[in-house]
């Protein structure tokens, strides 16, 4: 009896795990590309093993600095992409309806500093040099503004692909 319950639960768990994979793959395949400009950082101090801390230019923009004081610890900001798919900050979201082309982007606020998550990019150990000169974070957004960080892009807004892992 207990074994049967165990198997029944296992079926549910496998279902949930694989639905999670399906959901994320849908975003990767069908989502729209949004680029977030990275703020200039000293790469050496931020590369640690197999990930790189990211700072986004939006976090430091003057409009954000002017309006951030009233925001809570978690919230959404409204962004819109320009002709190069690069996101621009419009305003903080206050439950109002969005205009066409506007998207929501989640942020955290701690000690009066706004950060956008994910604020790190993970890669295989030893690949740091490929990502040192990244200029943009490449996101995929689905229609409900669920987003995934899928890679980093260089100055020409081309996603950085590490072709040969040995190099």
């Amino acid at each position, binding site marked *: 009896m*207990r*074994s049967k*319950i*165990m*198997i029944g*639960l*296992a079926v549910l*768990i*496998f279902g*949930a*795990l*694989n639905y*999670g*994979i399906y959901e*994320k793959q849908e975003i990767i395949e069908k989502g729209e590309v949004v680029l977030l400009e990275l703020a200039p950082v000293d790469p050496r101090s931020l590369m640690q093993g*197999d990930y790189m801390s990211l700072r986004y230019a939006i976090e430091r923009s003057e409009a954000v600095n002017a309006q951030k004081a009233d925001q*809570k*610890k*978690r919230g959404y900001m409204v962004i819109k992409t320009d002709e190069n798919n690069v996101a621009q900050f419009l305003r903080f979201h206050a439950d109002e309806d969005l205009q066409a082309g506007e998207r929501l982007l*989640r942020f955290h606020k701690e000690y009066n500093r706004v950060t*956008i*998550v*994910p*604020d790190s*990019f*993970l*890669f*295989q*150990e030893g*690949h740091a040099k490929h990502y040192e000169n990244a200029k943009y974070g490449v996101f995929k957004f689905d229609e409900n503004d*669920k*987003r*995934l*960080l*899928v890679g980093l892009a260089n100055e020409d807004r081309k996603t950085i692909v*590490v072709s040969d*892992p040995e190099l």
Partner: protein
Amino acid sequence: MEQTSQPALAQIPANRRLVDELYAHGKISHEARAYALDFLYPADKWGIWISRLFLAVGTALVLSGIVYFFAFNWAKITPLMKLSSIQGALFCCLLGAYYYKLDRVSGQILLLSASVLTGVFMAVFGQIYQTGADAYQLFMMWSVFILGWTVISNFAPQWILWLAVTNIFLGLWWDQAALPERESEELIFVIFAAFNGLMLTLREVFVARGGAAWLDQRWVRILLTIVALLPLSGPLLVWVLESGGANNALKLSAAVGVIGHGLLYAFYRFKVRDMWSLAAIALSVCIILEAAVLDLLASTFDDVEILMFLLMGLATLGIFSLAVLYLRRIISVMEADHV
């Protein structure tokens, strides 16, 4: 209840001292002594011990080998390959658990491995799909997924894993989702104390009702007691050591801490007599007293540090001597009652 003057034979714990005493008084022969000692302390005990040690070390090495394999070949293995191989391992564990059945340790350990692999899957999932989701969500899902298995496992280590995962979830959730105001941050102590206290209570209730032999192990009780004592003593320590006045949340947590210590003491002193738990409670009280004395001395002698440390040393000797004396007195009272 009628008290008999002679304790029943079955109530006297047998140990090496008892056997040696009987032999010294000529009550048993040399052969009887050797037989009794071999029965109490089997000669092949070390063999079992070393076999378990090798099992644990071997498992740890295999697991770390797998982790390093994935870390080193991260970019070469496609994301779906990573996720399906973990699911394959998960499936094998469950197949094994089904084959061996959950009544045997081998089946239970395989179910425990499956529970750990569920967490590994979610960690890898979170690394492949970088959503920036809060970490509490991972532990929440992990805790929910393995709860059902834990309930049917009848296996104490499985419960310990679930408790660890759920405690981490509670802590992260408080910080990342509940978003408490600064003046109510300390209520996390109450949440931890309530959750772990409830688990300890459930453990004692089920053991007292019988039919849960798998739960009736002393290390489970002492572990749960210590885990419950941490959030009970935490707010008291913070209150004593922090110079700024206490806010209402801290006062409430501290009150819960004092009541919790009292309840635990009453339970393990009078209801279920357990020296290990009493010793843990005594240690917790000692640490709080130490902190109080340190705070008092530091504020009184802040310009003569040598004197402060001398007095602190003496106070430490005093506090711990009192605790040990008190525990020894309880032991002798308990031995007189033959419990």
